[in-house]
Structures are given as structure tokens and as C-alpha cells.
């Protein structure tokens, strides 16, 4: 019998379950990759785009995206964490074998079934590739069910590129293109330079049968959206993931409230149609 992790919330929705870090990999000076094992008998059963709340006791808790594909997660999952504050710094101090605690999975993920048979444009900025990775992997694992795939990925410098091995693997997948651009190249960089929207001219797609999924820093959305809408992709076919402060992930603490929406429960993945009229969505 396996227990779904979120069933443990029956006693208290705030109390996590212990989990173990089984591997740590340093991607960049600020980003690390973690493999996490749930206690035996537990499964996460997440959807791409969902997240967990990660605790280091005595430090606190933070929402972190699950970056591994559901089909590859069997009592384990992966995450990529940028050290920016209390909890994320504390995670970076932990080595394989350490115990943390997990709640979740939370939120609504991407509606992958609605992407079937369509061409897909993934647009990732920086750490935005982490939540997208679970979706990309899921799509690639089931490659035959989807149309052409484009991944546009932008980072600040070549050193900031995350998931390098995955990028190679994806690029080698059938009918899949990966385009990477950096803001500031170094001498060794031979690829694209400049903001991510510069990559769009490289793409050929049928707007009517294309879905786009964007995850990146707040500033990126506006320009990428303009580009995609300009190319005729419908509001309802553009998906994004929102980041907000989240102290509970269960629609209580009020931090992630965006108009009448609780990002943690109603999101973090939204279609542009759902949020385009919300004043604060892209502020």
C-alpha cells in the first residue's frame, strides 16, 4: 500500500513529513540540484508544475517546484534550488543523507492532457527551467503524443545554465529544438546572445495548433507574451507559472493572493486567459 503524501495533511495541514536528501549536485555557485526520497510507502503523485513546501526544522519552510517528471518519480523526486535566503541557504548547507521535511504536492500543475497533439513552445528564464523540466520530461517521455517541441532558454551567463545534461538529451529527442541565449557571453560562448525574445525569429510554428508555456522571472513575462500573442497564439493556449510568497500553500496565509485568486491553490500554473485582466498579475 502506498500512501499519497498529501494524505498526511489530515492531522494538521501545516505538518510536513520527513524526507531524505539522497544526492546533491552543484549546478552553479547559487543553484543546487537535490534528489529527495520520501519515507518508504509514500508517493508524491504530482503533476508537472506542482510544488512542495520544503522544511528545514529550525529555519523554516519554502515552496519549491518539483523538477522531476511524475513518470520518473517513484517515492523520490528532484528539485533545483537557488540560494536566496533563509531556507534556500539552509538547503544549500545540507549534504546527501540529511533529513528535511516535505508537504505537498500543492497547487494545480499544467494540464498536460490539453497539450496532446499540439506543437509546444517552452520558454524558460533562469531558474524557470526547474518547474518546466518536469513537464518537458513528461512530454519527451511520451514523445509520440505531441507535435514539434521548441525550448527557448535564457540565462544571464553561460555559467548560469542549469540542467546541461538534460538540455543535450532534449536537443537529441526527435523533432525537438533547443535554443539557448545568454545576456552576457564569455569567450568560450558560441551560442546566442541577448534577451530571450531574440530567439523567436528562429521558430516556425502554426499558431492555431501551438501551446506555449512560459516560466521565468517576472520581468520576462511581458515581453515574451507580446511576442507570442503577436504571433497569434490564443490566450487560452499560453500557460505560465506564477511566483508569489507562500507561507502555507493551502490558501490560508494570504500572501499569494492575486485578486480573488490564491496562487498556491488555483495556480501556480495559469493560462494567460485566466489572468490577463488581473491588474496585479504582471505588476
Amino acid at each position, binding site marked *: 500500500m502506498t500512501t499519497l503524501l498529501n494524505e498526511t495533511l489530515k492531522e494538521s495541514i501545516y505538518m510536513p513529513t520527513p524526507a531524505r536528501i539522497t544526492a546533491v549536485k552543484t549546478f552553479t555557485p547559487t543553484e543546487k540540484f537535490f534528489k529527495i526520497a520520501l519515507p518508504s510507502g509514500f508517493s508524491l503523485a504530482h503533476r508537472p508544475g506542482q510544488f512542495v513546501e520544503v522544511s528545514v526544522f*529550525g*529555519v523554516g519552510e519554502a515552496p519549491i517546484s518539483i523538477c522531476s517528471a511524475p513518470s520518473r518519480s517513484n517515492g523520490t523526486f528532484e528539485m533545483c534550488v537557488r540560494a536566496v535566503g*533563509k531556507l534556500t*541557504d*539552509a538547503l544549500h*548547507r545540507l549534504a546527501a543523507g540529511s533529513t528535511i521535511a516535505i508537504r505537498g504536492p500543492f497547487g494545480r500543475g499544467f494540464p498536460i492532457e490539453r497539450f496532446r497533439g499540439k506543437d509546444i513552445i517552452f520558454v524558460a528564464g533562469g531558474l524557470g527551467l526547474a518547474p518546466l523540466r518536469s513537464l518537458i520530461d513528461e512530454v519527451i517521455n511520451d514523445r509520440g503524443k505531441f507535435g514539434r517541441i521548441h525550448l527557448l532558454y535564457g540565462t544571464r551567463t553561460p555559467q548560469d545554465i542549469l540542467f546541461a545534461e538534460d538540455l543535450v538529451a532534449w536537443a537529441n529527442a526527435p523533432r525537438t529544438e533547443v535554443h539557448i541565449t545568454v545576456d552576457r557571453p564569455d569567450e568560450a560562448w558560441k551560442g546566442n546572445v541577448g534577451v530571450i525574445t531574440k530567439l523567436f525569429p528562429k521558430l516556425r510554428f502554426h499558431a492555431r495548433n501551438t501551446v506555449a508555456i512560459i516560466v521565468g522571472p517576472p520581468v520576462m513575462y511581458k515581453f515574451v507574451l507580446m511576442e507570442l500573442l503577436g504571433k497569434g497564439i490564443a490566450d487560452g493556449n499560453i500557460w505560465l507559472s506564477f511566483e508569489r510568497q507562500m507561507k502555507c500553500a493551502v490558501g490560508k496565509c494570504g500572501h499569494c493572493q492575486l485578486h480573488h485568486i490564491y496562487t498556491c491553490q488555483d495556480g501556480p500554473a495559469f493560462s494567460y486567459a485566466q489572468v490577463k485582466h488581473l491588474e496585479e498579475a504582471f505588476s
Partner: protein
Amino acid sequence: MSAKTLPRIAFFEFTSCEGCQLTVVDTLQDHPELLNAVEIVQFREAMSERGDNYQIAFIEGSCTRPSDEAKLKEIRAKAQIVVALGACAHLGGVNAIRNRMALPEVREYVYGEKAAWFETYPARPIEAVIKVDASLPGCPIDRNEFAMAVTHLLQGRLPNLPDYPLCIECKLLENVCMYQRGKTCLGPITRAGCAAICPSYGDGCEGCRGLIPKPNWAAMKAVLREHGMTDAEIDSRLTMFLTYQTMQLEAKAAEG
């Protein structure tokens, strides 16, 4: 745990009343385990041993004379982490009241014709002299906050202390607002973390913990004026602990 693995900490004091270090001693009443959690290598107020091999330096007091600077720099060079302890170190504290006065005259008022014997210059927070990694605000510091800061340091991170306004904390305790008791209070622009101790004991906040990140200075003054304070009284209130910070703000404003 062997004594060797404990973080080594040292206490130093410059111009101050030593009340913050006394509060550190008082912390032991509620947290005797502190002595097992750290190794204190220097604490002149409480011990004779003097170790120079410290990782964390807690510094109380303001820098008020040129000759303090070398010692501060020496501490900075030896310590991995420097923590300013209390309002004097964090803000210049009450010592900085005199910064708005003519210093030679101040000196003469206290020491008469012998004034020249006493070296001094405007009081400054230690951050004005050396890099400070964290500050524990308050006059004096709050002992629970000190214990909390130490746990954060033991966890390998810098202390994470509130910087929202005192009113938040005050209302959590359901104090009747000082303004509704016919008094005035700097709570709206002052950092919380003291358990709103002054309003809780019937006295308006004096700002000893320093300003919140973006204080609405003009609105605060308007409120004080509306509650019957003259501009001179407002200035005096805002300079009890905030002289250095307000003079910095004024200087910034003057620059444009």
C-alpha cells in the same frame, strides 16, 4: 560535543552603558544552555580571561573618538562575523544626541576649561567605521532576541530579525494605542522585535530599535504635530535614538 567545535565568541564595548552586555548575562537566566552552545573567549565585564581567537565578535557601544577606530578595525580583522549589539553600536544611540550640538561647547559644559583633555568626536554607529554583518537593535537589546540571534548564528546564518513596524507587534498584544491614551509614539516608523515593551508599559515608543526600511517620515511628523507636539519637541523626540539615522536621511535629501 567537544568544547573545540563550539563557536568562539567575544564581547567588546565602546561608548555605552554596558546594559546590553548585562542583558547578555541575564540571558543565562532563561537560557543556561548558552554556556554549552558557545565558547566565550572574551567578555571583560564578566571575566578575566582574554582570548583573541574568536569567530564572532559582539560589539556594544558607539565609536566616539578617533582612537576607537583602530581597535574596531582590529576586531573586524580577527572576527569572521561582527554583530553590533544594541542601539549605541547599531545607531549611535543616545550618544549621538550631541551630534546636533556644537561639540566644543558640549565638551566645555561638562569639563570646563579642562575640556581639551578629553578626546571625542561625533558619536557614530560602528557600521560607520567597519563592516557589520548583523545588528541586534534595542536600548537595551531584548534577551530573547539575543538568544534567537545566537541560534541563527549557530545554524550558520546571520540573525534574521523583524524589520516591520512596531505597531504590528503592539497590536498583536492588544495594547491600547498610546495615541488613544493621549500620548505620542514612534511605533509606526520603528522596527519591531522588542515585544512592543514601551507601549506595553504605558510609554510611547522612542525609536531605540531604529527606523523601518522605508519610513513615511513626513506623515509621521504630521501625526505628531496633530497630537500637539511642536516642531522642536518632534525634533527632540526623533533624536533621542535616531539622531544619526535622521542626519543621514537629511544629508541624502540635501544631495537630492
